[in-house]
Each structure stands twice: as C-alpha cells, then as structure tokens.
C-alpha cells in the first residue's frame, strides 16, 4: 500500500489492475438474480458523483453559471473549500459500491470530507462525503487471505459505505481510515468542527434572517393581550429558551418565575403564533411538574387562564399533550405529568399519541434496513409498513392538523407540550403554523420558522445529531428533525402549489444538518450559540440558500392569501420520501424534472412576450409614420398578458 501526502501524485499513477473482488457483496445479489426487465441505470456512476457534488458541495455552485461549468467538467476532481486542507491520501483503496461493484481508486481525507476517486474505470467516478455525515467507522474482520483490511462507514444519511485496502506493512503507520476518524469526530478528538474554519463569504447574510422581535411584530405582538418580556434576557428564567418571549399582558415577570418553577426545565408557556383575526393562539411549554402527589401551581393555573382570556372568541382552552397517555402518566413517577382538568377549569386535555425519540430512532433504523442498499423485489409495502415510519409521520401530522383545526375552525387557543417541549412540541407547533400561516411556506418564512420554533426554542440539535461526536450509541440521538422535514415534504406533495420552496430545499437542509459546513444546526440552544459566538465564527446555511434562491424555488407556487392547509392525514396519501431515503440507489433515478419543464415554459413566455412587444412597437411606429395607410392596425388587440411568476 502506497501512501503519499502530496497532491501532485494524484492521478499520475493509474492503477492498471482491475480488481473485481465482488463476491463479498451479497447484498445486491437479490436484484441481480432477477434477470427480467430490470431498470438498472448505470447512472450509479454519474449519479453517485453528480448527486454528491451537487448536493453536498454547494460552494461550487455559488458563483453561478461559471462555477457550474467548472463543476461539470471537473466533477471527478477534488475541489477544496476555503480553509479545507488535505490530511491524508491513500492509493489503491477499494470502494465496494453496492450498485456498481468494487472500484479501485484514491482516497483523500481532508478536514471536511472524504473524497474517493476511481482510477480504474471510465467514465470517471467520484464519491464526495462530508465527514459530518459519518456516524461511525468500523474495522470489519481481520486481515483476509489477500491481506486486505476493510472499513465500514455508517452514515447518518441512510447509507453505509465500505472500503478496503492492503494491510499496512509499516505497522506504525496509521490507516487512512484512522486518520479519517480523527476528523470525522473532531469534538471527541479535541478538534474544531469544520464550520468554524469554513470562511466562504456569501452575498446574503443568513444570520440576519430571523429577528425575534420583528417576527412577533409581523404577528401583531405586542398587542392589548400579549407583551414581549425581557425576563429571560440572560437566560436566567430558562436556559433553553430564547431571550425574547411573548407572554400574556397580565402575567408580571415575577409570576413568570413561579410558573417556571412548576414547568419542567423552566419552560413556561409562551406564544408561538397568534391568529390575525380571531386572536386564538398557539402556545408551547414543557410538562407541568405534577408528580405522583398531583402537585398544583396557582400561578400556572392563572397563566393558562390568562392565555384563554387573551382570546375573546372562545371560553375554552385546549391542551395538546403530544405523548401517549400512558407515557404521560408514567412521567409522574419522575415528577412530571400532565394538567388535570380539575385544576385547570375550562381546559380540555388531549393526548396525541406520538412516541418518544427512542421509538423514532428505532423506526428510522428499520427503514434504513428496508431501503439500503437495495429494495427487495417482493414485500416492499409490507416491509415499509413494518418500520412504522409512515405511521409515526401520520400521527405527527394528525396532531398538527388537530391543533390547526382548533385554532382556525374552533377559534380556540391551544397549549402544546410533550415532556420537555423541545422535540415533539417543536414538530407540532411548527407544522401547525405551516398549515395556518402562508408566510411560513415561503423560503424566508420557513427559515424563520426553523430559527424560531426549533433553534431558538432549544431543540437539542447537538445531542440529537451528535455533531463530531464518536459516541454513536448515545441514546439522545434521534431523527426528530428529519421526521419534521419529512412531514413538510408530505405537505408539499399534497399541496404542490402552496409552498415557495421545492424538494431540493428540504434535501439541502437535511444534508447540511449533518455536513457541519454551516453553523446553523450547531449547539443545543440559543444561549450556547451565543456563548460559542456561532453567528460570528461560522456561516449560516441561509446565507448559502438565500444567495441562490432559484435553485430552491418551486415554480408552481401561488401565493394565495388566507390559504389554510388541511391535509388528508391518511396512509392513503402518505408516501415514503423516495427522493431522500432512496436517493443513493441509482435505480431510483430522480423523477422527470417537471420543474425544468416549467422553467422552459416560463422562458418561452418571456421570449414571446418580448417579440410581441417589439412587433407592437414596430407597428405603432409604422402606423404613426403612415397613419393613412392602415386604419385598422392590430394594435388594439395587443394587450400584454400578465406575467406572474
């Protein structure tokens, strides 16, 4: 095994040996044995490289067309980002692509990515993997008869990769995959996450997208019933909440503190959204600390009454507890619990039966088994059903729909919580707000929604994703946010004209949830982000996205006013998000780009409009010069058609 640290040698030595060694890849044999008309696009080659370079190295596209051309011609060459440095390079590595078979090539590891370039096949093939995606690296088996060692990379984005190289002769030298582990888990190795080094400058500044005060102002807060409080300015009331909070007018800051004592982690009920007409509100909090003895808090009861009173339209308040009632009851043993209807007059408690983070993690794990690397020819639907993934999605959407329906149709205020109010509660409030308020369905509005309901209200991204942390078995990891984005995708499927953003937008967000290229999803709370100076030291994902909005825009979008979405929450309408979970499978070629066709049509219209305008000018000029000649010129019929995009 030859190793070289210099980039110069890259590609100069082409491995002449074609090493098939495919026998070990039994995983694909099921589909291979199926000899009848299989759609087995070889786009595996291009798709792997195209999709990775297109989706995971956005920086190459940033500067518009020029960069694009560059990328296309050089997609199989490693393009370093600002401050990205090659750490190690190994030749003669075998990558066992589950779709193509074994490929020989060169692996480069930088402080941001793993780059595999195939040397024994044309058209060239490249694999570009941000190290943030790696969940764990495992050495598989001992040295085989040929003296190979192989490594498996389990990834957070629903794929596993396998590599092998010759046993080191020099036993003191580290394998490239040991080097990789160092940079894949910087937090565990006392290194810095790459986002702190990435210094790309974008025309837009994403850190300015969301400002809590102006978002409340957009909703008409403060008003006669709701005020903005600075009681949490130094995160003393609640260290997982944002500094700016909206609370009922008649709850003084002093009482808020007593309410905080009664709510888990001090997460008091605060305003998420207010209906512009009925003043019905969506408020969020954590569970009350009722405990086995059924403790009560006068201030908390008064608080919920105040929330109800702030809405003159209804004399009822709905409390949506996201958990199954059994779980909620079990929480009493740990001091938590739920509101009793005796203590909270005029309040009605509803359990939404959504399971906890551990159940969701297990469900996604099963889903990965079903979709990666290959889909079995038979029992696809029952296998999918056995993962329960879509059932969970259904329950979350159903909960959000009930909330939205109560607020919109019932004009009733709602309080939403789960245990801590930072997982299921985030899902429910943000989905309900998407259904209720068209603003959040725009690109910027969605960014605001994420910044507010998820990031500022302390969804623990660091813990749930485990950025740069090698402890892959951590029970705090869970795909809560992925699940939410999946729900959003389901909504876009049901309402193809109601969202300004497209599927690529959602996939990009999820890719950079893991990539550690941007600072957006780092840390667990606003307080931590402030302490780490994230906005100062890293780039926001929204800077990247907002600098090239066209890529993320849904051409079918129509900005209807007062358009509340009531999705059909039924498995009949829920689908597996193939474009995300199965995108690595080359047989899963992306569906024909309808959006492309739409853009062509838009261009066509613009061109025609231009020609009509030109001709009209010509005719007007001509008729002006020789007005007597043609009395009935066609000018009158030419009225420009409206152009709305």
């Amino acid at each position, binding site marked *: 095994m030859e190793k070289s640290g210099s980039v110069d040698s890259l590609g100069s030595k082409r491995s002449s040996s074609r090493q098939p060694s495919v026998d070990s890849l039994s995983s694909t044999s099921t589909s291979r044995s199926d000899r009848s008309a299989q759609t087995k*696009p070889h786009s595996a080659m291009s798709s792997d490289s195209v999709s990775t370079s297109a989706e995971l190295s956005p920086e190459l596209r940033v500067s518009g067309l020029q960069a694009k051309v560059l990328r296309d011609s050089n997609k199989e060459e490693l393009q370093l980002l600002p401050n990205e440095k090659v750490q190690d390079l190994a030749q003669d590595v075998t990558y066992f692509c589950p779709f193509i078979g074994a490929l020989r090539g060169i692996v480069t590891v930088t402080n941001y990515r793993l780059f595999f370039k195939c040397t024994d096949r044309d058209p060239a093939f490249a694999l570009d993997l941000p190290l943030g995606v790696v969940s764990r690296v495992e050495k598989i088996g001992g040295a085989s008869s040929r003296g190979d060692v192989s490594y498996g990379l389990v990834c957070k984005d629903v794929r596993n990769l396998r590599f092998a190289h010759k046993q080191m002769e020099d036993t003191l030298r580290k394998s490239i995959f040991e080097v990789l582990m160092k940079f894949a888990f910087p937090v565990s190795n006392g290194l810095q996450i790459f986002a702190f080094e990435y210094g790309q400058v974008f025309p837009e500044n994403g850190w300015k997208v969301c400002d809590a005060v102006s978002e409340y102002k957009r909703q008409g807060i403060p008003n006669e019933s709701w005020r903005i409080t600075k009681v949490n300015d130094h995160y003393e009331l609640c260290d997982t909440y944002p500094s700016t909070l909206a609370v009922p007018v008649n709850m003084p800051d002093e009482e808020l503190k007593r309410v905080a004592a009664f709510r888990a982690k001090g997460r008091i009920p605060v305003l998420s959204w207010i209906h512009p007409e009925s003043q019905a509100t969506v408020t969020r909090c954590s569970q009350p600390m009722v405990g086995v003895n059924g403790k009560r808090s006068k201030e908390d009861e008064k608080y919920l009454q105040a929330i109800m009173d702030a809405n003159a339209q209804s004399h009822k308040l709905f409390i949506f507890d996201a958990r199954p009632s059994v779980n909620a009851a079990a929480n009493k043993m740990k001091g938590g619990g739920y509101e009793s209807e005796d203590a909270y007059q005029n309040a009605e408690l509803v359990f939404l039966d959504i399971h906890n983070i551990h159940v969701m993690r297990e469900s996604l794990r099963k889903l990965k088994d079903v979709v990666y690397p290959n889909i079995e020819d038979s029992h*696809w*639907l029952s296998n999918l059903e056995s993962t329960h993934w879509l059932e969970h999605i259904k329950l979350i959407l159903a909960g959000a729909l009930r909330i939205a329906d109560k607020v919109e149709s019932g004009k009733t205020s709602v309080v939403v919580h789960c245990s801590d109010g930072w997982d299921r509660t985030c899902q429910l409030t943000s989905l309900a707000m998407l259904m209720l308020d068209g603003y959040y369905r725009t690109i910027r509005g969605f960014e605001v929604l994420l910044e507010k309901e998820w990031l500022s209200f302390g969804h623990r991204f660091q813990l749930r994703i485990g950025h740069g942390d090698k402890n892959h078995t951590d029970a705090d990891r869970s795909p809560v946010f992925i699940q939410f984005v999946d729900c959003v995708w389901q909504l876009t499927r049901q309402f193809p004209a109601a969202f300004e953003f497209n599927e690529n937008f959602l996939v990009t967000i999820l890719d950079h949830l893991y990539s550690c290229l941007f600072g957006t999803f780092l840390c667990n709370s606003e307080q931590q982000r402030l302490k780490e100076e994230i906005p100062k030291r890293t780039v926001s994902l929204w800077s990247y996205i907002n600098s090239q909005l066209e890529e993320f825009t849904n051409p079918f979008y129509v900005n209807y006013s007062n*358009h509340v979405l009531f999705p059909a929450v039924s498995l009949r309408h829920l689908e597996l998000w193939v474009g995300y979970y199965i995108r690595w499978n080359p047989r899963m070629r992306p569906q024909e780009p309808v959006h492309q066709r*739409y853009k062509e*049509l838009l261009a066509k219209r613009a061109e025609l409009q231009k020609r009509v305008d030109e*001709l009209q000018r010509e005719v007007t000029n001509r008729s002006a010069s020789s007005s007597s000649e043609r009395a009935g*010129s066609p000018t009158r019929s030419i009225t420009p058609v*409206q152009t709305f995009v």
Partner: protein
Amino acid sequence: MFSGKPTKPTFKCYLPPVQVCICGSLCEIVVNEVNFVRKCISAESSQDDLWGKLICTNFKVSFIPQDAPPKQKLKLSHLLLEEHDIPLTCLEQVVTVNDTKGKKKVLGSNQKLKFNPTELILYCKDLRVIRFCFDEAGPESAKKVCLAIAHYSHPADLQLLFGFDYQGRRYHESKGEWVNGSVPRGGLQTPIFDRPSDWDREIKRTGASEWRVCSINEHYAISQSLPEYIVVPVSLADQDLKQHSSFFTDQRIPLWCWNHSNGSALVRMTAINDPLQQRKIDQRYTVIKSHPQRNEVVRSDLEKFLPGIQDIQSAFVKVRQICVVDPFEESEERWFSSIENSRWLEYVRVFLKHSAEMVYYLDGKNSSVILQEEDDRDLSCVVSSLVQLMLDPHYRSIIGFQSLVQKEWVMAGHRFLDRCNHLKKNEKEESPLFMLFLDCVWQMINQYPSAFEFTETYLTVLSDSMWIPLFSTFLFNSPKQRSHCLMDFAKNKAIPQGEDQVVYFPPVWNWSQQFSAKDQTLFNNPMYVGKGAPCVQNGEVKTFRRTKKTFSSTMRGTPASLRNGLRGGEDSLHRRSSLVSELKPDFSPVKDESPSERFFRDWFSRPANQQGILIPLLLPSHMALWKLFFLRWVPEACIARGGPITAYHKLSQLVDEIEILQGQLRQYKGPSPGSTPLPSPGGPLSDQRRMYFTAISPSDPPTPPDFLNSSFPFTPVGNLCRPGVHGTPISKFLNGARIWLSTETLDNDAL
C-alpha cells in the same frame, strides 16, 4: 306482482312504461320510481343527505334531488348523465337491506324479495358505492324500484343494451347533419382499422416495407376473431396464409403490430396446435429477408410469465374492496400490506416489466418479438400496447393512443363484452384487463409527466366510458360480432346499407358525445412535449424541420391531418443505438450483469428523450396507487384545495398565456406563404383554447382555488366507508355477503 312471475319475461315488456323521461336521453323510458328517498352523502351525520326521487329507466338509475344544490361551477359535467345518475351497465351489484329485520339480499334478475327494503346499496363498476334509504318512502314502491333496477341491469341480450335504442334514434334525428357534412366518418380522426387504408398508413408510418395488408379475412372468411384486414409478411402469399391458418387457435393468422426502424417487428400469435410447426412459423413470420441483423426471433409465452385473467380479476376485486368498500379507518391500519396483498400493483409491475423486456429485444437486440398466448386476445393486448407505447411516441398523443386501443384491443378481438361482463352472465369471464392496461399507462404518465399528450383525467374518463353502453368500442367480443350486430341494428333501424358504422354507431373516441369542448380540454396535458419529427403525409415520408425549442410545435397543436402520421421514434432510435456502440469499449460490465440489464442501465444513464423510447422505472417502490382512479369517490381521502390538480391549474394558465401570445404573434406576421389564412386581427381566441384553466387577468388577485381538490374533476359522493344509521359499519353488517364476487350463489338465498 311482477316478482312472482315464474318464467323469464322478455326484457322489454317486463314492465309497462310509466312515462317518457324528458330530462334524460332520447327514447329513454322510466320503468319505475319512488319518492321521498334519502341519498346518503356525508360521513358522520345524515344532515347533508339529499331527499328526492329515485327513478329506474331502461338506461340508468337516476336520483333527482328535491332541492337541487347549486351546481358546482367547475367540474366535469357529462352531457348524458347527471351527477346522481348511474347507467345500468355500470352496476356491479344491487344490494337491498332491511335494517330492522337485519336482512340483506343481493338482487339478481327476476327475483323475489321477501322483505321491504329500508336501504338500497349500489356498488358500481366505476368504484362508486351509493346508498339510498327508504325510511320515508312507500315500502311497496321502494321494493318495486329495487327489483326493477336489479332486473334491468341484467339484460338478456346484447341488443337490449340501451345504446342500440339510443344510437338508432340519434342517427335518424341528426341524419341531415351527418350525411350532408363534408367531414367523413362523423369527423372522427382516430383510425378505426376497419379498412385497409388505416393499416396501410400504419405500415408506412413505421417503415414496415416487408409487410402488406391482406384481405383474406374479408367477411371473416378465415377467422371469427380477427379483423377483416390484417397485416402479413410480403413473403407469404394468400394461399400460404390460408394453409397456415389451421395451425392456430380459431384460425388466427399471426397479427403484425408494429415495426421498429431497425427492421424488427412485433407480432402476436395464438398457441400453435402442432408443435412441429412452431419454429417454421416463427421464421416465416418474422425473419424477413432484409432484416439487417437477421437475429434470432424471440418468442415470449405470455401465460408463462404473467398472471391469468382470474388472478387479475381477484386482485382488482381486492384493491377495490380496500379502497372503497372497507371502512376507512379500519383499512387505514394495515393499508400498505393490504394493498400489497391485493397484488394489484405487483401485477401492474409485472406487465410493465415484461413489456420493457420486449422493448429490449426489439430495440437493443434488433430481434423480432412474437407474443404468444393461447388465444391471443387478453394478455397480449396489454403487452403489445405497452410495448408500442414505450417504443413509439406517436402512441403517446391522444389520437395515437386511441388508434392503439383500436388496433390492439378492439380489432384484435379483445372480448370486451365478456371481460366487462356487460350482460352479467358469466362472472368467470370477467376480468379488468383494460383497466390494468390503463393503470400501467398511468404509471408511465406518473413517471414521465411530459411525455404524454393526455392527462390522468382522460384515462379515468376513458375507464368510466366502458360502463356507458352507448359506444361501439367496449360492447363486443370481436370485430365480427360488432359488425354483425351493427348490421342487424342498421336493418332494424332502417339505416340505409352502405352507411358507415362509425357514423351510425360511433366509438367512444367521438368525445363530444359525452363532454363539451371545454370539458374535453381537461384531457390535454399542458406539459406535453411533442416534436416536429419525420412524418408521413399522403404516403410520402416528409421531415419537419426540428425546431430548437422543442415545445413550440406542440403548443399550438399539430394540425390534425398530420397527427396520424406523426413519427418521432425513428430518428431518436438511431441516435440511441449509435451512442451505445460509442460507449461500449470503455464500459466494463458490472458484476454478473445480463445484456438486458446493461441495456436498461445504458438507457437510464442518459436523460430521457420524451419523444424517444421510454422505459418505466420498475422498482417496487416506483409503483404507486392510482389515487385519482381508486380514491376519487372517497370523501375522507379527498384533499381540499390540494392534490396534483393545483399544479396542473397553474401550469395550464401559463400554457394558455403562451398560446395567447403565439396567437398575437401570428396576427402580426400575417399570412405566411403556404399557410392557411389567419384569423382577422383581434379575432376571438377563446373558443379554441386548449387549456381548461385559462390565463387570469392581472387585476384578479390569486384566490385559493376552493373548487379544486384531489378528486377534481370528479366529486366524491357518499360511499360505504362509514358507520351505518345505527352506528354499525355497513360493510360489517354485510359481512358474509361475498360482495363483488358471485351473485350466483347469493341470488338464490332468500333471507
């Protein structure tokens, strides 16, 4: 009492006509009616239910609401059927229920009913399930209406289907217009393939120079199930064909379907009685002298690879049960595995997969393909039409698609009468093969949304038309039966001899029989990418100049006269095969890849050419349930203000704007040499708009399209997925009744 008659009365004199229905079609007769009937509409409560009159005529079951609700502004409205009408041929099963006595009975023809029904449930072939309650209606008249519906939906004879009365009357009343009009064949542009010229044009279009039209089956002299004109190899003389015919089931000489530009041909054939003859026949029919590669002929025994007609029927019955009959919430629980267990999507996939493999042989291996099936009238209809749909973009236009159905189904002798079971005589013969085909086509549309000129609405409406007995397309088992029936019919109705059948008993393709011009625009796909491609005109191959912007030619629609001859496949086929050879040297095979896998891999590695070959993606996860078709009547599954139609809405408006601009441009440019005179400047465009949703004026603010939902343009009406009056889900109540399956056994169970 009429129900007590021991002998089977004739259909017509069974009940005295009550009155001639004026609101309905011509010559429609009301057989029986009952007032104060409640039609169940809403899921949870009865407050939305409609009160009105239930009528049975010799054509349909009709419900006339007392207070007609305001008509919805935008919605497909049938010219012959109202919203609450069900043609008798569309009835799958008539079930009467007596709630208080806990009795139910599936009614057949000429039966007794020992209880007074409190409810009538109609299961329809278009998947509607409709329930009427008689709680306020006269018990005797309710019973009479139920019996009349059951009886009249089981006509004793084909000629008694309402279409025969209707078309006879229509012919005489509108004769002047038809005959004096200069448009031949009632203005129909779709080739019917009942005359040599239609076949001849198809031979020329596909460049099948080794094939000829042959008329030995004129007057059905050789085979009872073949059309009068068929296409056979030039190398075989009529005498040879006559000799060969005895080898085949029903003397069906092999049928030519289609020719690839590389010379390979698609042929369908029955089983051969004498195995020794098989190889000889294969050779004579497909290896043509000038075939460039002279490759081996591929013969595919369809029955070996594909499910049988009864498997398909039972899959359809199951999927229908899950989608529209089972209680909504109950079937929600195990939705995916239930769908899987029905095997419907599996069968859809198997058919697409097998067809794709045939595409590989024809295109990738330059081999001719013979589709072989026992009698060549069922499975091969599906496969041959799918193969052609994948290979030849012509069939993806509306006219092309209709000609494909005409050629591979109607003329090839698919037994529509038996498979649809219009006479409800033999349920073992019933099988939704055509429906399966339409679902396969929908899967292709779903994957390639801009490759087809028509929409899923078109496919759905086409499937519904099978159950309206007014068109000659779906009524007969063979061209011979059709021809004889229509000759008798012409004699009875005093239609002069020599009058074209297409004129006096038109096929379904004359859509203006059913829908207004405006409603027909719902068939047009705004995303369709047609192309100016080589085409045949008056038998002469001409090439259109390929325009850079591929859509420019279709946006205005190709002139109808040229559409028939549109030919897009050939040139792209050449390009594709040359690409393959270019890539070959550097393309090391992947693992143990078969040549066909390689072929598909190559194809998928390049962007799909909408006007070239199209191969569907065939992973199980690519197969989707056709929601518009299966769920359109289910209110619980309806997405308000959503569904794919909302994108279609926006797209149509954009295309409409483009067409307005193009119209304006033409006005400026004035008549160009050789073109027809243009409309005068400022002339109205609106009457010829191709899009259903037209451009809005800038002053209108966008408002949420309230009328749009995932069922559009259909309206979900009441069905059974709901609790019954007393809280019991009706379908549970009906447990044990083998709904959809045999009425035979149940007919005789008096409960």
